[in-house]
């Protein structure tokens, strides 16, 4: 059986394609963002590096984490250099819309509001939102938040989700970044805080004497890379990237390495 054709690597095909007018030129349209990335051999990916385990600054001062590792894998698979655009959480979408990044790959949960301004690729991971706090805070369910001060971080999924299940009398306190939320929890400024299960686990591990525990699960959400709405071609490539790296187990390996838990089955949009 001749299967050379089926399994010919892209090399020969890409070589042949170079001799042809680019698809964009052939179709008489402007170069797409994907075309530009391939031409310039650099992809700019925005990622928040203050949100462990998704994006962190590692021991050598270098960005690390699940999403940083995914950014590196994506650039490698695309065969281009990675320009990691480090942003704060609130700038993840503005940086993309302003053209400072081509993609944002930064644990962006799929939400209706975000989908009004950007296009989500298929999910590359999942996160669970929990409420956690010191043992002295008596809390096992959402209703127990009444009369308690609960810290949450702006521009996060918990900011969208927690108020929905908060009973009357719950006092939600907003912080601009997650380190401020954590500080408020450790100092007793709030009785509990809401964040991802991974972030909560990391806080607990780093502060064993604080006696912090997970109180209850708020919800599980899926997150995915985002592109500008007009960038259909780039979105399609990223979706193909996710498809193949789900099949070969690479996305699951990265996820487990940084979160310590198995990647759940990822649905598609």
């Amino acid at each position, binding site marked *: *059986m*001749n*299967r*050379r*054709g*089926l*399994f*010919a*690597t*892209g*090399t*020969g*095909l*890409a070589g*042949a*394609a170079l*001799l*042809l007018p680019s*698809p*964009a030129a*052939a*179709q008489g*349209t402007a170069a*797409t963002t*994907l075309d530009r990335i*391939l031409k310039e051999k650099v992809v700019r990916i925005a990622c928040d590096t203050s949100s462990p385990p998704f994006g962190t600054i590692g021991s050598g001062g270098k960005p690390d984490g699940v999403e940083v590792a995914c950014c590196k894998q994506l650039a490698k*698979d*695309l*065969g281009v250099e990675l320009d990691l655009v480090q942003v704060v959480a*609130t*700038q993840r*979408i*503005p940086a993309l*819309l*302003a053209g400072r990044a081509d993609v944002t790959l930064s644990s962006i949960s799929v939400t209706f*509001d*975000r989908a*009004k*301004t950007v296009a989500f690729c*298929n999910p590359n991971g999942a996160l669970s939102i929990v409420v956690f706090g010191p043992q002295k805070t008596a809390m096992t369910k959402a209703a127990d938040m009444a009369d308690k001060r609960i810290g949450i971080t*702006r*521009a996060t999924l918990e*900011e969208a989700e927690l108020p929905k299940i908060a009973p009357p009398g719950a006092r939600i306190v907003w912080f*601009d970044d997650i380190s401020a939320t954590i500080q408020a929890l450790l100092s007793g400024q709030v009785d509990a805080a809401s964040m991802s299960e991974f972030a909560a686990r990391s806080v607990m591990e780093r502060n064993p004497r604080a006696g912090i525990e997970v109180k209850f699960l708020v919800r599980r959400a899926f997150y995915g890379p985002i592109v500008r*709405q*007009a960038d*259909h*071609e780039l979105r*399609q*490539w990223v*979706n*193909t*990237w996710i*498809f*193949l790296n*789900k*099949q070969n187990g690479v996305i699951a390996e990265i996820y487990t390495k940084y979160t310590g838990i198995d990647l759940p089955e990822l649905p*598609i949009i």
Partner: protein
Amino acid sequence: MNRRDLVAGKTIAGAAALTALAATAQAQATAKTTLDRILADKKIRITAEVTSPPFGTLDRNGQLDGSEIATSRQLAKDLGVELELVQVTAPQRIPALLAGRADLAISSLSITLDRAKTVAFCNPHGALSTVITAPKGKPIAAPADMAGKRIGLTRGTLEEAAVPKGAPAGVNFVFFDDIAATIQALLSGQVDGAGMSAFAASSVAERNPGAGLEKKFTVARAYYAPAVRQADHELRQWINTLVFLNKQNGVLADIYEKYTGEKLPDLPVI
């Protein structure tokens, strides 16, 4: 989201929406999509690569046949247009599409990231599995069981790349220049087992019932899909709908089984 950013985002979105509206109106006034043109011409041009059995072949009468040809015929029928098969060599499958000689490539194109840089893949409509096949008496149920065994592989194939990757230490790989030599070594007992496509393994087992060959395990599975030009969103959407419906009604599975002798595995979507 930070309030200011949300507002800024809305402003940008608002401006973008006005621009997009103007652009859409203009596009609709001047440019037809590839899908529009196919429907107006009542003809779709699809690549046909005929040197890759069981996907694309020439039958005894010189007629095009194979699972991908059958899929192309089904597609044109479902679209309600005439089919023009554009015969290409394997390396010309994508260039023919990009050059506009075909509207669509359906030629067992496995999904790869390099290919996705120049074309857009629709959702997969078929799969190719690499398996280890061996006589029933050989205790090889998992990759680890290959340790200490002689495993035949054919050079220049997917199995040559895929099987050693997941193999334990101590496997004695024996390489052959073509699949006929690999099969001969398997039948003569020169090797304990061999890696090949699931189709080839079925075919060898059927032709040599006395050898008692069986598939031991699947090493790797690659999915293949129709490909369109990246800008042809409307055509891709129609084809994804076709793949969806023909998965539901069993037509894709029937075609696959008829030509490959294999059950169609569950097909994921991109």
